[in-house]
């Protein structure tokens, strides 16, 4: 108990000493700066001029600091402050523990799903593609992060902020979709190499390895073509392609929307302005054509 009390007292002393020293240093600095400023200040400059205002502000700031530091240096205030700071590590630890367990959970989930990638990469088995890694990312994004972009915006600029957030959100979704799509497109290449290796092994066993390098290429391109054909007909590919196109369109639309707002501030026509005009021209031309036809008849 005594040891704890001593430790607290010594902390108080150190802090009090530091506050006093800091107050003295800044007080001295202020005096030096004031003297220096007085020597370079033009003689006709009045205290009410620009430099006068700066000087007044500086004076006020320094006085506030001096008052604060001397108050903080009082033992009873310092004591309560240190008590508060003593509880800080506990709060920080709790926050860190919660974040860490969340992160570990996330990491665990991620590794668990990532571990399943490649389990179904046997040749010609596109129906059972393991998309869990990308699905996991999309799921985590949609459950954990996406909400940040949907926080209601407030105030005069709320619509603009909302559009900016939407663009970022749509971009993230598009990135997730296109990564999955590109992975699918690359899959036949990987598979064709593994099938090619198997085939070469078989040919080697049978002593039928081709002598001409071109035949190896032809063998590979045929295998690759076959894998692509199988992939392209799979429901996974068709769905992923559709999703990629959808998310790409949504991102483009959100980006255009944001861009329209920016262009509105410039003295140029936006795409929306032009589209309105084009539509009017289109409808007018159509009416004229119909009238011409009626005249003919």
């Amino acid at each position, binding site marked *: 108990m005594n040891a704890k009390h001593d430790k607290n007292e010594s902390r108080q002393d150190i802090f009090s000493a530091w506050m006093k020293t800091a107050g003295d240093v800044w007080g001295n600095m202020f005096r030096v700066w004031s003297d220096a400023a007085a020597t370079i200040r033009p003689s006709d400059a009045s205290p009410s001029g620009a430099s006068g205002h700066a000087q007044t502000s500086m004076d006020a700031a320094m006085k506030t600091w001096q008052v604060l530091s001397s108050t903080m240096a009082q033992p009873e205030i310092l004591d309560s402050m240190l008590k508060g700071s003593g509880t800080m590590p506990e709060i920080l630890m709790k926050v860190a523990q919660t974040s860490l367990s969340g992160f570990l959970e996330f990491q665990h989930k991620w590794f668990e799903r990532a571990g399943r990638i490649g389990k179904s990469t046997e040749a010609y088995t596109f129906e059972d593609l393991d998309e869990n890694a990308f699905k996991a990312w999309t799921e985590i994004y949609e459950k954990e992060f996406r909400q940040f972009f949907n926080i209601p915006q407030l105030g005069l600029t709320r619509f603009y902020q909302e559009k900016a957030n939407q663009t970022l959100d749509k971009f993230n979704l598009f990135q997730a979709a296109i990564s999955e799509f590109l992975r699918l497109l690359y899959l036949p290449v990987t598979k064709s190499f593994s099938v090619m290796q198997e085939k070469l092994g078989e040919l080697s066993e049978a002593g039928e390895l081709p002598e001409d390098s071109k035949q190896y290429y032809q063998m590979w391109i045929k295998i690759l073509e076959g894998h692509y054909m199988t992939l392209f007909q799979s429901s996974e590919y068709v769905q992923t392609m559709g999703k990629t196109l959808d998310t790409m369109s949504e991102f*483009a639309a959100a980006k255009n929307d944001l861009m329209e707002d920016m262009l509105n501030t410039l003295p140029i026509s936006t795409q929306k302005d032009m589209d309105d005009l084009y539509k009017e*021209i289109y409808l007018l031309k159509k009416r004229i054509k119909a009238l011409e036809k009626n005249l003919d008849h």
Partner: protein
Amino acid sequence: MGKPKIPVDLILSKLVEEADKARARAHKASDVLLGPLDSKIAATPYEVVCQEDRVKLKHYIPVTDIKLKTPLLVVYALINRETMLDLQPGRSVVETLLAHGIDLYMIDWGYPSRKDKFLTIDDHVNGYMDTMVDFIRQKHNLEKINLMGICMGGTFCVIYSSLNPAKIKNLITTVTPTNFDTDKGLLHLWMKAVDPDRLTDTYGNISGDAMNFGFLLLNPARLMIDKYVGFFEKIDNKQFVENFVRMEKWIFDSPDLPGETFRQFIKDFYQKNLLIQSKLEVGGKRVDLKNITMPLLNFYGKYDHLVPPEACELLTGRVGSKDSTDVCLETGHIGIYVSSKCQREFAPRIAAWLAERDEPDRKPRKKKSATTKKAATIAAVKSKSSRRSQKHAQRSG
């Protein structure tokens, strides 16, 4: 010990041989690539005789006496360009048709810009196509003309012929999708997963480059790898390089597709398959395939991966015509127009088929009711021809 020996020595010697060949080829290739190359496409002379907005009507300068009294209008798809029919001298559908004495017209759809995004299938078929058909009818003082469609252009021709049977004498459809309820072609499968509303609302027009990327994805191994490996293997062959570059020029010359047309084409054709069921509506009118009473010649490719035979072959059984023929050629979607084998089979066959049906104003044998209607139309056309000619001249200007 029982394992057979791997012929490493032979493989290595072949590799050395290949490397030597590649070096020699590279040396010759530099001469080919740095020298003058004739890779011009669409070289057959023509004049633009009518224009409405971005859409032009090309009339090819005859190279021989016109043998067929009825001119032929060719309608290409809105995807890629009509230059494919005239890719290179000696391998050109245009050239062959001209050589057979056909008076040939072709629609050039041009390059749609953002202002064209509202154009629908109705605008293309009942607007531009109708303007061009009427122009030719008036110029030649004819009641009917021959119509030939390529791919999506063929689908447009089917719609047009159903809505305007009095203006079309003979209809030729080539690699024309009319039945979309099939999983044979990847496009048919993929388009069911595409949301045309989202794409059209976002992008306005559908980018030609984006569509081309989609077409390359149909067979990336062949179209993105093997094709160029083949090119490097024959890079020292000037003629091969010229033809290869011609094809590259054509294939990547991709106009954007007007958004509203794309929206309707995906929804009503690929997703609902309305045309073949005679349930499609264009410009407020139902497209009844039974209205297609004129002779019909329907070409398709056995190995077409874009528009498979299943997408084409139902048409002849659904139309009202008593004279309809299916021709399945052993080739793919593009090969039908550019392969040397099809050059002998395709265009000459069209010319012969048209020649057999070129009797002016010949009436269908079993459809007497059409006769009165036809006579009335002729009278109407003749009485208005001068006024319309003036209008077309203004449009052309």
